[in-house]
């Protein structure tokens, strides 16, 4: 996967580029908005990481220009401004995700993977499979090896978020945003509590490894293979 990183701070830019290369991405960089716009329109990138505050052309303007030029690659915007109005502004400009600085590198990778794997018309897909699990968004049902599981709406949304990115890490922050629409960090263990209840329901009566793995310090991952059977 080819990724363009547009970031004016040299140290941050190198840190992101090196980290993404270690993850197996092919990374190119630009250090201002004009260069970013030029490179993005010339090269074929699978995703863009764009800082909001850039010299010459700021991140918002860059994203708007790219969307106006019909460039459809997913864009993650990096910013120190994370209040709702700024976030909405960023998303309205055409960014697909919004990540507040400073961030853990794994958070960026998880979000890039979540975006990169998204099919062009994500809304069409209403059923997801991960190992023995089958989730149907339309009928709001979950089965394990054909047996229906009784989940609360919250547990269902939690599992849906994980299964949309089966095999990939979904971070705690992403879950807070997607399941609870919390764009802040609650001091209590909302995610952990609901996750442990969901796991208990998924694994009750089955032996073998847990279907949902904890990636310590970062988030969770639902197994894509059929290890549970």
């Amino acid at each position, binding site marked *: 996967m080819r990724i363009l990183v547009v970031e004016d701070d040299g140290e941050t830019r190198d840190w992101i580029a090196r980290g993404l290369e270690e993850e197996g991405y092919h990374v190119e960089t630009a250090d201002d908005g004009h260069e970013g716009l030029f490179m993005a329109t010339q090269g074929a990138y699978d995703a863009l990481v764009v800082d909001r505050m850039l010299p010459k052309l700021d991140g918002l303007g860059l994203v708007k220009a790219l969307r106006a030029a019909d460039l459809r690659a997913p864009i993650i915007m990096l910013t120190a401004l*994370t*209040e*709702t*109005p700024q976030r909405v502004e960023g998303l309205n400009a055409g960014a697909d995700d919004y990540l*507040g600085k*400073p961030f853990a590198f794994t958070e960026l990778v998880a979000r890039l993977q979540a975006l990169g794997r998204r099919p062009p018309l994500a809304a069409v897909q209403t059923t997801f499979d991960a190992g023995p699990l089958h989730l149907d968004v339309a009928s709001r049902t979950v089965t394990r090896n054909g047996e229906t599981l009784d989940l*609360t*709406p*919250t547990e269902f949304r939690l599992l849906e978020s994980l299964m949309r990115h089966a095999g990939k890490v979904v971070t705690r922050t992403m879950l807070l945003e997607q399941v*609870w*629409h*919390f*764009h*802040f*960090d*609650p*001091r*209590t*263990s*909302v995610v952990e*509590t*609901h996750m*442990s*209840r969901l796991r208990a329901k998924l694994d009750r009566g089955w032996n073998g490894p847990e279907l949902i793995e904890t990636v310590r*310090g970062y988030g969770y991952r639902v197994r894509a293979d059929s290890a549970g059977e």
Partner: protein
Amino acid sequence: MPTAQANNSSSFFRLSLILAGLFALASLLMAGALYLSVTRNVRERLHEDIRTDALELASLASHSGATALRQAIVQRVDVETPLPRWYGLFTAQGQFIAGNLRWRPPGPGWWHHPIHARRSAADRHPPVHTLTVLALGTAQGELLTVGRDRTYINQLEASYGRAFLGILLVTIGVAVALGALIGRRMLRRVSAMSDTAVAISAGRLSLRMPVGRSGDEFDRIASTVNEMLERIEALLGEVKRIGADIAHDLRTPLTRLRRRLEAARTHPPTDAAALDAMLGEALREIDELLVIFHALLRIARIESGEARTGFVALPLAALLEELADAYAAVADAEGRQLELSVHGEPVVAGDRELLVQALVNLIENAIRHTEPGAHIVLAARRDEHDVVVAVADDGPGIPEAERENVLQPFKRLDRSRHTPGNGLGLALVRAVAELHGARLQLADNDPGLRVELHFPAA
């Protein structure tokens, strides 16, 4: 810094003097017009009197003949009047025939003629009188003159003139004096205010504008400015205090972090696991600091009021149900019980995310500061005038004297020092409440704490 007084000292005086000048000019015009109209009226009446008299005599001459005219003149001269009336009759050749005025005008028409009163013992220098004389030709070809003394009118005109001049001078004097007085009075008050303002901007924030008792515009400005100063002083005090608190609360974890990193450099961990644990600890410290930073920034942004533009109508029943769904499990895992109670159809205008965060903070506080087994109620109801959202618990509560205190950033009860938290939760709740025009109230739940948010009904 120069005072404003030097620049503005003339402006009030100038204004009052201009006003006084205009007033005086208006008085002058009025007095002049009055004077002219009065004197003209008097003069016209004199002329009218003379004309009537003369025409009467001329008509007598044409109807009854020259002899009747002579008799009439003699009669009129004899009649006693306060001021003597003057008559004369001359032949066509200019010979004086009858009357008491021997001066013959050159022809018919209006004439002025000075006469000298007879010198008497009492009056050695008698005044010169002026006569207004009308000369007419009679039917017989003789010349008839009728005259009246103008002295009376001249005196009247002079005395009117003096009176008007006197009044005018007094009026101008009073106007200028009043103008100067008012100007000085205003100037004094403005100077007092500007001196105070200069002193305040020089840093003496405890000073206040002088307020008089009359409640006039100056007093209103002064008291408005004073209210503003009150608020600014309070805010600055708060900023100072928060600054000190931030310094303290951030310095502690920063010191800890620094010590850890220093220790790691002098005594590097030998095995990978120990190094990983050490770095993990350091990252957690940094994340904790970031959370505090984020919370502070967020409170500052909320207090700036910019979020108010994005307000929408929020039905609370659904919002609270979602929260209860998220937190019933958390409370349960912690051994507490969370109940939901919604009455009526409470709706408020607000920012969803901020309201959710405020309520999450309250619920988390309730979970954190109670013992296992506690009951927590998340409630909303619609009253006649407002919508009340409450989070109540049956834990230890907060002593009444401490309730205002805990709303301040970084203020925590001593007994909760050992529980996690950064002391910003309630400060954020308060900021969110203020943004929404809601009243935040900490009450006794008997036992426990009841935090209520009274929103104006949407």
